[in-house]
C-alpha cells in the first residue's frame, strides 16, 4: 500500500506521519511538497498536523486555497482514503471536504497531553481494527480544536454515523464531544488527536497504530486478491 504525505509550509507532523506509515506499518510512503504534489497512484493520502501558513487568517484557511486541494477534492470524490490530523483536519474543514469548523479551545489554552477517545464507529475503513466503544489513549496538541457545527449538521452527522471518535473528557469544548468525523461516504476522516504520535509503546501508547492497520486491512481486502 502506498501512502502520500502532503507537506505544506508550516507542517510539522509530516515526518511523524511518514514514520508511522513507512517504518511502523511497514508500507510505502512519500512526502510530497504541496506545490508539486501529484496524488495519482497513491492508495491513501495523509494530511499532517502543524501550522500551515503560520495559521494566518484562520487555521487551515490559506492551505485550503492551494492547488493540491483541488486534487484532494477529486480523490475524495473517487473514494481514495484521506486522513487529516490536527491542522490536516482544519484544512479539510476549511476546504469543505468535511462539515463544520474549529474554534479556539474553550479555556483558551494550547493543550498537549494524552486524552482518552471512545471509538464511536468501528465500521469505517479507518477504525475496523478497533472494537466499538473501545477507549484508546491518543495525544492531542492544539489551540483550536473546539469542533463546532450547527444543530442541523450535528443531526446529519449522527444520522449518517459520521462521528467516529469522541473525547471521554472533552478537553476543548467540542460539540457533542467530537474528536473525529468522516464525510458521508466514509473515505475522508478528520480528527484533532494525533494517532501517528501513538504508534509504538516507547511513545507511551500504540493505540493509534490500529487506525493505520485498519486502512491497510481495508485496502488489502479491496485490492489484494486472496490476501
Amino acid at each position, binding site marked *: 500500500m502506498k501512502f502520500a504525505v502532503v507537506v505544506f509550509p508550516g507542517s510539522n507532523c509530516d515526518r511523524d506521519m511518514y514514520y508511522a506509515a513507512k517504518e511502523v506499518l511497514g508500507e510505502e510512503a512519500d512526502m510530497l511538497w504541496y506545490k508539486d504534489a501529484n496524488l495519482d497512484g497513491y492508495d491513501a493520502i495523509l494530511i499532517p498536523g502543524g501550522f500551515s501558513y503560520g495559521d494566518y487568517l484562520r487555521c487551515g484557511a490559506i492551505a485550503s486555497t492551494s492547488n493540491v486541494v483541488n486534487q484532494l477534492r477529486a480523490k475524495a470524490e473517487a473514494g481514495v482514503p484521506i486522513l487529516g490530523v490536527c491542522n490536516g483536519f482544519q484544512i479539510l474543514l476549511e476546504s469543505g471536504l468535511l462539515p463544520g469548523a474549529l474554534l479556539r479551545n474553550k*479555556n483558551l489554552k494550547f493543550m498537549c497531553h494524552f486524552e482518552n477517545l471512545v471509538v464511536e464507529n468501528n465500521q469505517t475503513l479507518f477504525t475496523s481494527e478497533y472494537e466499538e466503544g473501545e477507549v484508546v489513549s491518543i495525544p492531542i496538541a492544539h489551540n483550536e480544536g473546539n469542533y463546532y457545527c450547527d444543530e442541523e449538521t450535528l443531526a446529519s452527522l449522527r444520522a449518517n454515523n459520521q462521528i467516529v471518535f469522541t473525547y471521554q473528557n472533552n478537553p476543548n*469544548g467540542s460539540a457533542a464531544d467530537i474528536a473525529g468525523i468522516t464525510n458521508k461516504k466514509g473515505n475522508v476522516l478528520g480528527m484533532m488527536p494525533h494517532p501517528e504520535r501513538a504508534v509504538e509503546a516507547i511513545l507511551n501508547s500504540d493505540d493509534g497504530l490500529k487506525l493505520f492497520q485498519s486502512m491497510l486491512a481495508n485496502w488489502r481486502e479491496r485490492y489484494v486478491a486472496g490476501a
Partner: protein
Amino acid sequence: MKLVKVHITLKEGVLDPQGKAVQGSLNTLGYDNVQEVRVGKYLELTVNDDANIEQEIEDMCSKLLANPVIENYSYTVEEGVAQ
C-alpha cells in the same frame, strides 16, 4: 483605487473564548458595566477600480476572508487614498 473595509465577527451563539477573556479583564479593571465582548477581525483591502468590485468582495469574503460556518462579515467600499 478603492479602499475596502471588511469586518468579520463570530456568529451569534458561537462561543468566543477570546471575547470572554477580554471581558473578564475589563471587569477586573473595574468596568463592571461590560456585559459581553465579542472579538472580530478588521481587514483593509486596497483594490483597483473595477465594475464588479462588490461581487468580487462578496466572493472574497465567502471563499476565504470569513468562514461562513462560524463567522459573519460586512464591508464598505470607499474612495482610496493615493499612497
